[in-house]
């Protein structure tokens, strides 16, 4: 029978404001999940350990936590696999990151739900409801299949680097739900959604650290959804108002005119108003040779690229 030490983050605000760690030694069966192990500890050793859980089947999304620093769904994570991956018989268990702890492994998810609600995570069709149901082809539903798998476990928020730097960032799961509906052919609010998700703390704030794709236990690939929302913004003509969108536009202009990125174009294109105020820094960059010629950097066979830019159709 395997034995494991669980080094658990404890926070019991009723008795102390200071979090502490507590080790629990546990003998358990070969194929025990982290959730089952924690419940066994709760049952046999310390009934006061607080954690959220419900379905035990990776459906409800309640039991996300960190195992040795990596965010997991406790009910999906096998104890023996964690030990093998990390080469240790001790597993550190912590609440998910980027949220305030409430008690032990339970965090305050209110900001998560507020952000989720803020993206209008429901279908808003145009016009009157039809007499019968709205039929959608399999192909059309496949466009939003990944995003439909989200179980709102918040694992993608736990290590999001943008969220760590800006607590107001609306975040990966909410934006994935945004695309779930912006990409649904029955929805009539694509343009409004593109506007809603753009702007400060919105889709252009994603720093592409890829933690969300790495940690999502359901294959939602939230970063990919954010990318698709950018595509929706461009298709709906909502691509000038935000500096992030203008930054992306500078790449398109660069590639169309020369094939390579024109770095010197990026700053004034992204921040046309504030760029001149940054002249001292620009001078430093010029002095260090870090401001290349603003003329297009022409590749060979640019005609191929121009043809592609004109003819490739987008489907987001």
């Amino acid at each position, binding site marked *: 029978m395997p034995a494991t030490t669980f080094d658990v983050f404890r926070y019991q605000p009723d008795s102390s404001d200071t979090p502490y760690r507590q080790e629990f030694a546990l003998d358990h069966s070969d194929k025990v999940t982290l959730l089952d192990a924690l419940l066994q500890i709760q049952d046999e050793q310390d009934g006061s350990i607080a954690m959220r859980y419900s379905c035990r089947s990776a459906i409800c999304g309640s039991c996300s936590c960190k195992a040795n620093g990596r965010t997991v769904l406790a009910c999906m994570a096998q104890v023996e696999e964690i030990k093998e991956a990390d080469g240790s018989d001790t597993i550190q268990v912590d609440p998910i990151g980027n949220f305030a702890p409430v008690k032990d492994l339970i965090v305050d998810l209110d900001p998560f739900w507020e952000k989720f609600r803020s993206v209008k995570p429901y279908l808003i069709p145009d016009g009157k409801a039809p007499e019968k149901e709205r039929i959608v082809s399999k192909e059309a539903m496949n466009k939003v299949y990944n995003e439909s798998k989200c179980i709102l476990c918040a694992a993608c928020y736990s290590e999001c680097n943008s969220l760590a730097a800006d607590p107001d960032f609306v975040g990966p799961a909410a934006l994935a739900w945004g695309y779930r509906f912006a990409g649904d052919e029955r929805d009539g609010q694509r343009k409004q959604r593109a506007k809603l998700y753009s702007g400060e703390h919105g889709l252009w704030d994603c720093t592409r650290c890829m933690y969300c794709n790495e940690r999502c236990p359901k294959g939602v690939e939230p970063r990919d959804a954010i990318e698709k929302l950018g595509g929706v913004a461009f298709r709906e003509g909502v691509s000038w108002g935000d500096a992030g969108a203008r930054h992306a536009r*500078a790449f398109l202009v660069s590639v169309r005119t020369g094939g390579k990125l024109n770095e010197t174009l990026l700053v004034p294109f992204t921040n046309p108003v504030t760029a001149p105020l940054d002249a001292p820094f620009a001078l430093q960059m010029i002095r260090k040779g870090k401001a290349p010629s603003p003329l297009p950097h022409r590749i060979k066979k640019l005609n191929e690229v121009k043809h592609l830019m004109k003819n490739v159709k987008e489907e987001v």
Partner: protein
Amino acid sequence: MAKQFAYYPGCVAEFSSKELNATTQALAPMLDIELLPMPAATCCGAGDIAEAKPNLYLTLNVRILSQAEEMGVDVLTICNVCTLNLRRANKMVKEDPRLLEKVNEELVAAGARPYEGTKEVTHMLWYLAGEEGMSALEARGPRGLNGLRVAPYYGCQLLRPSSVMGFEDPDKPQSMERLITALGGEVADYEGKSKCCGFPILLAREETAFKESHVALAGARDARADVMVTPCPLCHLAMDAYQRKAEASNGEEYNMPVLHLPQLLGLALGLDNDIMDFGRHMVSPEQALATAGLV
């Protein structure tokens, strides 16, 4: 015989961070690598084109892969972001023949060569930290780094998503540690080595980006690193070119010289300093390197 690659330096190494390109080109023959130019390759889009026009991103990147296929060699990159964009496109079309067919129709209509899905994309770090690279390094008998204390900084897009990158455990990367140790350096370990440098949003969300770069810069500083080293020129811009601005924004002092990975190898192999051109760095590494007797 030298190992041949289709060399895809990426835009930043070709223009604003020329010292990286020059160092890589000078280093390659020393390590038995032949870099074949790709004169018709575009920008990979850096995630920005993917964020504006996803199908265009895919088509442009497959066009680059097809050029390497025509040359009969795999692609070698020196930038995290190029690596992710090219590898992701490669994975998408290799796993979905119908998608490849669709992309090829676009390429052929534009007069470009269709892609058969036979090539791979490797970052120089991966090649060097692998068996072939390590034995080429060993054969060269590096003069060493004289115990220089180096903080490896991986950034994000060479590690994650692991389903696309897959070279090493994204949570416990060791490739740069292996190289630093093999070259006679000392590893300064710290938690922020695989966190984001903030560069993708630096121009659009400067303050947020600086809070991100703070995590790694402060981590390397607190680990008493002499220098930080990175395999990505975009991370280098965020960490070096914008470091003084980050200090002002965060109310911190880092004073952390940041080397491009090929510069670290160049130092260990005795490459000419004029080629590595440390004068182009915003935070000068000269003093740290002089103290270690490397310049």
